[in-house]
């Protein structure tokens, strides 16, 4: 018998948060309509209240999980008393209802953070908060109407829970969803700024400056979230892959691609005042694609490995939300985007144009991913039968686009704004281009196995080109009086971010072309050779975990000379409650290679079927993700954003003259 009824309190808090969100949405709207500026002031406290109540609501759900309150249906379905406490904690967002609560709580957190920004005109702030409040209202209604995590199973309370899906009982799944949601939801800020710009008609460079740091921070989280998700899939799913072009993965990649384009486009808009309508459109797109991902994953319209099970009722609700948010904002865009043709000159060879080219490639890449993801649905809806669009399609189309992207990525930073001088560009680039062609295209591809492969050559060329041009850019930046100390944080950010992409490209190239995979029979004390290494099953042991039992193999790995490299402990687990078998792969990781062993099924005579992977440089693709995020962090920390007041005055001056 609980003295405090936490789930009900959480539920009430959620309803109160909805009320707050309503105030936050309606008051600025009315205030603008009836010209009552005082009413705008309601938005800020409402945002605080909303955050407070949602925090409380989220805490109630978390506490109920910790207290094993199995009278709550969501907890009964996703937790168990034997579950370790940290997984009880992450089980809060382990399924549909709780993850939505996390989603809206994060949104309120972003809203709270925005409401604290100084240097923003009060009227603009109120409108931004109103837009974010409107999104909150939609999602709070969605949760309350279709996906209430606090619903009780009464009167027949189960004695214990059905347990969290064993796949989610992992460190990666504690961190991955919150990071990803921080990214998705973070784009709501850029979206709200864009809508405010359209609504108020203030489409100057100032809005670009305001939304830039927010966009960058959201992008950092999304980058980290995707990287972590890929890493998790690699070590947890036991198949050794890191990306499958599954709809759920694609749903996170699409906002990332557009978010990347948006970050760059915002830079141009802020610096040069051009491409305004394009930047606005990207801001709308990046959040719209986050929402679209939510729809695709939660409505059951697509087949995915990790989709939430189909519920057309919920799907319909999200589709309505989608229609209002995306349809409404695109309509507003079409009606309100100004026809002003900014009289800022730029030539074909200018940084503006190169950035625009990259923007277009990124958007086309997003389009490719979108098309591939929903095409089976489109054909099916037209009655043309079922097809599958998988890795062969995406790899064939995305790889060339990425090569093109890398080419312009190298050019961009070394080109001046407005009009690049050919001679200077040539002088800066000739050695980078030469070295790239000689080493990337010809020399490096031979090194690993003495043979020339087309895709290795392409990958090496791309990697080297980005690295060399980035270094050249660093050299240019450090030529000032203060040397390397004179390089600004945002410049470092750009260079690190680009180097991160090069690292990812390198890792992908190596692992896609040189990885080795073998399914082998392993008997006790009988060494098996894979990729020049000897794998010996030295013993098998039975393990009792907190909520599972496991067979654990001890596999000794030694080099050709007999020296031991590592001892690995792959497991085959059986989770007690769900009776679900799980492969726990064992990995010996290194900078140049991963050795990966996963257990299959027992064979006759005490032998086991095992899968052994040798994956050269696979870590680099996640290091690259980390570097990109770090680059973003440096760019977001640039001190220019702290003297915002002065800058927004200047921006206003630009507008006054330009419009």
């Amino acid at each position, binding site marked *: 018998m609980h003295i405090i009824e936490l789930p009900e309190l959480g539920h009430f808090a959620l309803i109160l948060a909805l009320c707050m969100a309503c105030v936050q949405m309606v008051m600025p709207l009315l205030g603008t309509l009836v010209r009552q500026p005082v009413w705008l002031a309601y938005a800020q406290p409402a945002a605080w209240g909303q955050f407070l109540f949602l925090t409380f609501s989220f805490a109630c759900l978390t506490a109920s999980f910790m207290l094993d309150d199995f009278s709550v249906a969501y907890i009964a379905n996703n937790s168990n008393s034997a579950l370790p406490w940290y997984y009880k904690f992450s089980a809060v967002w382990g399924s549909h209802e709780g993850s939505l609560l996390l989603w809206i709580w994060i949104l309120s957190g972003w809203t709270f953070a925005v409401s604290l920004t100084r240097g923003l005109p009060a009227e603009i702030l109120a409108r931004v908060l109103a837009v974010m409040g409107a999104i909150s209202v939609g999602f709070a209604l969605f949760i309350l109407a279709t996906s209430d995590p606090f619903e009780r199973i009464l009167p027949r309370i189960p004695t214990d829970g059905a347990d969290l899906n064993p796949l989610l009982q992992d460190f990666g799944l504690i961190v991955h969803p919150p990071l990803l949601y921080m990214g998705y939801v973070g784009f709501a800020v850029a979206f709200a700024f864009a809508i405010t710009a359209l609504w108020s008609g203030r489409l100057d460079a100032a809005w670009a400056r305001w939304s830039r740091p927010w966009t960058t921070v959201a992008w950092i989280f999304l980058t980290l979230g995707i990287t972590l998700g890929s890493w998790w899939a690699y070590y947890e799913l036991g198949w050794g892959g890191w990306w499958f072009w599954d709809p759920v993965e694609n749903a996170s990649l699409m906002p990332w691609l557009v978010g990347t384009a948006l970050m760059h486009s915002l830079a141009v808009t802020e610096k040069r005042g051009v491409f305004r*309508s394009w930047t606005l459109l990207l801001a709308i797109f990046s959040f719209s694609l986050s929402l679209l991902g939510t729809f695709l994953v939660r409505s059951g*319209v697509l*087949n995915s490995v990790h989709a939430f099970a189909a519920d*057309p009722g919920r799907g319909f609700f999200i589709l309505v939300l989608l229609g209002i948010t995306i*349809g409404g904002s695109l309509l507003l865009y*079409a009606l309100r985007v100004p026809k002003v043709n900014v009289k800022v000159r730029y030539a074909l060879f200018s940084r503006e144009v190169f950035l625009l080219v990259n923007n277009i490639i990124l958007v086309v890449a997003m389009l490719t991913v979108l098309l591939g993801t929903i095409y*089976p649905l489109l054909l099916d*809806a037209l009655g043309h039968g079922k097809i599958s669009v998988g890795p062969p399609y995406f790899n064939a189309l995305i790889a060339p686009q990425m090569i093109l992207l890398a080419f312009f990525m190298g050019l961009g930073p070394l080109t001046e704004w407005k009009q690049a001088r050919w001679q200077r560009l040539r002088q800066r680039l000739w050695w980078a281009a030469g070295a790239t062609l000689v080493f990337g295209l010809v020399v490096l591809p031979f090194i690993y196995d003495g043979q020339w492969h087309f895709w290795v050559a392409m990958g090496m060329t791309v990697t080297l080109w980005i690295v060399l041009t980035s270094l050249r850019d660093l050299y240019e930046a450090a030529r000032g009086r203060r040397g390397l100390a004179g390089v600004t944080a945002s410049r470092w950010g750009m260079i690190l971010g680009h180097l991160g992409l090069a690292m990812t490209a390198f890792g992908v190239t190596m692992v896609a072309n040189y990885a080795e995979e073998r399914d082998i029979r392993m008997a006790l004390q009988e060494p098996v050779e894979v990729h020049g290494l000897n794998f010996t099953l030295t013993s098998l042991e039975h393990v009792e975990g907190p909520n599972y039992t496991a067979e654990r193999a001890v596999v000794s790995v030694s080099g050709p000379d007999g020296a031991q490299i590592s001892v690995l402990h792959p497991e085959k687990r059986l989770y007690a409650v769900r009776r679900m078998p799980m492969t726990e792969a064992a990995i010996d990781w290194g900078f140049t290679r991963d050795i990966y062993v996963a257990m299959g099924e027992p064979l006759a005579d005490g032998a086991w079927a095992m899968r052994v992977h040798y994956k050269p440089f696979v870590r680099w693709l996640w290091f690259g993700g980390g570097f990109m995020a770090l680059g973003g962090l440096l760019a977001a920390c640039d001190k220019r954003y702290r003297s915002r007041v002065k800058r927004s005055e200047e921006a206003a001056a630009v507008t006054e003259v330009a419009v």
Partner: protein
Amino acid sequence: MRRLVLFIPLAIFLVLAVFFMRGLSLNPMERASTMIGQPLPEFSLKRLDAPHQVVTRDDLLGQVFLLNVWGSWCPSCYDEHEYIVAAAKAGVPVIGLNYKDTPEKAHEYLRKMGNPYQMNLQEPEGMRALAFDLGVYGAPETFLVDREGTIRYHLTGVVTETLLNETLLPEVRRWQKH
């Protein structure tokens, strides 16, 4: 003119939204059949009730019949069984294909649920014969085969009352008249 260009993103979104709307009522797990209009594949399988007797494709031809893939391990097969019985009662010959099952469990199932089948063929675990050639990837599935041995209808999933009365039986009658 330029204004109209600005409406393109909205138009694309609206088209997509219509498709998504349609998508909500479609089941992505459903598969279209490649078998309709194709001849029933050649096979030679043991009978469940007379294991020494081997049945081939030619033994089944000459009548319009339903081929029902089932297994005692399959929960949905229990659900649809009464309509298979109803089909047999309505005079439609039903051939069973006992899929990934053992004879003991299959006999137990038939004893308990009743046996509507004219005969049952066995395709146990590890064997890839008729069911595999028919593209069966689970149970239950039901095929309608005409006199010449051409597959005329293919259902993946459970036979329900409506499906039986409004689709299966009329289809059988239609091909019997042919």
